[in-house]
């Protein structure tokens, strides 16, 4: 006989996520994932200036900040056939790499670490042994016995105050925590260090985009003009600042994040066989090095993997209407043609209609509709998106940089490649791609310097900025790899205004409810068979859900309340 448990709110994520799970014999037998907040931004975008869209959709998410804005300017540039100058592509790539470092480090330490690190147990650690351990795994200078002792004293005082603040009611002492006290103390110390570090790396966004969160983008390039002879422009001082920040970021990723990740993972190898889920992976690809349209020159190659078969990578086409489709069988929406059909985003139609229980309620009716997320499918398949998908596709495509980091991690942990298809694999892949982007960020930076040195200071292509130059009708697709996975926006511009704007977002792929055939999406599938030692303490559920790094505001933002049929798109060959 199974027992239904509810975890709501799932904390240490972006937004509002509810998990209901049936537990039988200490394992999860069935699971349901529900997004419980909606803002309907898509309707708000209708009729607005396409050049403004990046600012609106940027506000889809402040955690994956900048990435929706990037997708949006690409989408409009695609529609209007604008080619941005090489410097703008490099600056956008540098901001992208910065975002990866920031987002992944914050996820690891501030959103995920407390699933593995027992903060209270860290108080029992011997600072001297902690120091020896820290120095054996990294050259990071802050590792003296005094350093760890000071942090431990500070936290002891904090705990003794009886006001545990963000650590209140944590799962401290749970038997699923397996780290030695010294490793817990390292994790705790670096939790605090990473909190201070993260505010530094984003200064790259402030230099090029004026602020973070929500830096500014521009259709046609970037607004940050280069002038080496002006105090307030991108000059040698600003560039040196960026270079320093990127190097510091890389040092932190390589000397703190990766060693901690590997040290912690080595105590949780059993999680290399838990939380695998679908085994299908989808990547659109990103980091163009020869313009947005030359997908073969992306640093992150795109592609799809089915049934864990890394030897075969399928190509993905976002413009074909039988590839990406969205279903609403279990979502709080209505389709005019019936709720079981799947629609390509270009042809998307939506009418939000809540049909769940009247709040306050204890349980959702999971046999019916139970989420504000739609259910996207690729050629009918449920797909997982995110760092693991990217690393597997890069590996499967035979890219040497991916092979190098993956093979090294597997060797260091002494686990087979199948361990990647798991909760642990997801968490590890996030670290591996952080080290890749840390290096790539510096590479792009050096190319930017070389371009400027060679006399190219262009930063924006403004020839088609004036709406008077636009065709009466235009359609575009913008895609990116958000830190949480494959992200795409579709735009339809009519008479210089937005006629339709659609977004299919990473967490929508991962966290969506079941499809018309009852097929589970990634979160639900990954939770199946997850052990739960104590039904009242959802620690193991958090481990697997956090390994995806949920971003709920991203996943539910759109949709048209009036249920207008969105214009059919004629440029797609139909």
């Amino acid at each position: 006989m199974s027992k239904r448990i509810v975890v709501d709110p799932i904390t240490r994520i972006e937004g509002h996520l509810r998990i209901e799970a049936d537990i039988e014999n200490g394992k999860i037998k069935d699971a349901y994932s529900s997004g419980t907040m909606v803002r309907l931004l898509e309707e708000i975008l209708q009729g607005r200036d396409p050049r403004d869209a990046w600012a609106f959709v940027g506000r889809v998410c402040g955690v994956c900040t900048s990435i929706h804005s990037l997708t949006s300017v690409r989408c409009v540039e695609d529609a209007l056939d604008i080619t941005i100058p090489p410097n703008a592509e490099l600056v956008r790539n540098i901001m992208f790499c910065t975002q990866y470092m920031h987002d992944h480090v914050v996820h690891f330490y501030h959103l995920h670490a407390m699933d593995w690190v027992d903060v209270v147990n860290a108080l029992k650690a011997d600072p001297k042994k902690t120091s020896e351990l820290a120095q054996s795994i990294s050259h990071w200078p802050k590792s003296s016995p005094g350093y760890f002792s000071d942090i431990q004293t500070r936290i002891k005082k904090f705990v003794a105050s009886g006001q545990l603040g963000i650590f209140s009611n944590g799962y401290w002492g749970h038997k699923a925590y397996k780290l030695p006290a010294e490793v817990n103390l390292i994790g705790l110390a670096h939790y605090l260090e990473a909190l201070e570090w993260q505010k530094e790396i984003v200064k790259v966004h402030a230099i090029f985009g004026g602020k973070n969160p929500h830096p500014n983008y521009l259709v046609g390039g970037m607004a940050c003009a280069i002038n080496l002879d002006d105090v307030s422009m991108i000059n040698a001082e600003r560039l040196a600042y960026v270079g320093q920040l990127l190097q510091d970021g890389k040092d932190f990723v390589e000397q703190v994040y990766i060693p901690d990740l590997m040290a912690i993972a080595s105590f949780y190898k059993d999680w290399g066989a838990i939380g695998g889920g679908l085994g299908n992976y989808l990547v659109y690809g990103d980091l163009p090095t020869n313009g947005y349209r030359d997908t073969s020159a992306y640093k992150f190659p795109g592609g799809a993997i089915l049934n864990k078969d890394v030897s075969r990578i399928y190509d993905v086409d976002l413009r074909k209407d039988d590839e990406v489709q969205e279903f609403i069988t279990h979502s709080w929406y209505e389709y005019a043609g019936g709720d079981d059909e799947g629609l390509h985003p270009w042809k998307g139609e939506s009418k939000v209609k809540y049909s769940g229980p009247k709040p306050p309620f204890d349980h959702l009716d999971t046999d019916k509709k139970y989420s504000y997320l739609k259910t996207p499918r690729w050629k009918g398949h449920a797909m997982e998106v995110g760092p693991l998908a990217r690393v597997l596709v890069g590996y499967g495509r035979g890219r040497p940089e991916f092979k190098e980091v993956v093979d090294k991690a597997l060797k260091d942990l002494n686990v087979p490649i199948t361990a990647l298809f798991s909760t642990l694999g997801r968490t590890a892949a996030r670290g591996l791609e952080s080290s890749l982007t840390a290096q790539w960020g510096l590479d792009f930076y050096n190319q930017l310097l070389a371009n400027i040195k060679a006399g190219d200071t262009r930063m924006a292509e403004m020839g088609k900025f004036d709406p008077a130059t636009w065709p009466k009708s235009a359609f575009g697709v913008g895609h990116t790899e958000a830190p949480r996975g494959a992200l795409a926006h579709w735009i339809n511009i009519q008479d210089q205004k937005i006629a339709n704007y659609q977004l299919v977002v990473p967490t929508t792929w991962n966290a969506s409810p079941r499809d018309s055939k009852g097929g589970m999406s990634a979160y639900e599938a990954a939770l199946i068979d997850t052990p739960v030692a104590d039904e009242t303490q959802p620690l193991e559920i958090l481990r697997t859900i956090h390994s995806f790094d949920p971003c709920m505001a991203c996943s539910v933002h759109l949709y048209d309340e009036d249920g207008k049929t969105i214009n059919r798109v004629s440029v797609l060959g139909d």
Partner: protein
Amino acid sequence: MNNEIIPKQPTYYEEVERKGYSRRDFVKFVSLMTAFIGLEQSAIGQVAKALETKPRMPVIWLHFQECTCCSESFIRSSHPIVADILLDKISLDYTETLMAASGAQAEAALQNTMTKYKGQYILCVEGSVPLGADGVYCMIGGKTSLQILHEVAEGAAAIIAWGSCASNGCVQSAKPNPTRATPIHKIITNKPIIKVPGCPPIGEVMAGVIVHYLTFGVIPELDRIGRPKAFYNKRVHDTCYRRPFYDAGLFVESFDDENAKKGYCLYKMGCKGPTTYNACGVTKWNGGTSFPIQAGHPCIGCSEENFWDNGRLYERGSSFAGFGIEADADTLGKVALGVTLGAVAVHAVATNFGKSKTLHEHQAEGNESEHELES
């Protein structure tokens, strides 16, 4: 409601003493507590000291219709840094972004603070509350955000409305506001509410609001619409380092053009600095690194009410609907903009342009631009 004193909380020791326990009982308790949390007996002194120290201010931080950019901005603060705020200054007992506990344990932490510190805790709200469809567009733990807000606001000493969502509704309340996204002050009317608008607000400004209270024991002086004067009493335009170019009539005509590369004023590119009250020009962003105008993009006015519907991003002030008509006294920004623009034609000629050699050099160019603005 300004300068309202929020009740002081007794220390743990004071509380025990008031209940009639002796110092000896207290020391005994400390010793047990020390053992309980797994510390050596040598730490007893430390524990006793902590319990005799004033409790950190309890804070509950709720998340409704938002994108978490406010929480992200808060952790960007460089003075004080957020670790010091969390460990030494406040007790952030509930925040869905950072707290260790989820589900029932998170709910218990919330209830515990609401009960134990009734009338004493600060409620921070990030996000707007949807009133459409009886509130079902935002639900947490099976309750609507509206239900939760009413419950938690009841025992709050004061409320901080973080960001434009909680202060004025922000992007989800832009026309046609399909979920009826509503700012906090339109729902809770019997508590002091500090509005800290911006999308997001600057991290140091957020920390500054908290530090102001903790340092001076009163909430900061607010302006007539509830914003702390310390950070919102000047327009971005008035504190902008590019202001002299505006005064001289020197403008960027197109992104990345020669004038853009000289750092001229972005007014013609749609800059909303003349109508926006915020600290960007002075405090700047990310530890003073830069701010939007410094990075070449016009201010989009993200701290102003309804900024998503106050004209398009790249549309300059003179073409705003209703520009120059001082009809609506509540839209202070628009009035201010009218004054600014009215003055711009004579401004450069009458004053300032002789300020510096650079400006002199560009005088002719500036006059030409002004003619264009006038026409």
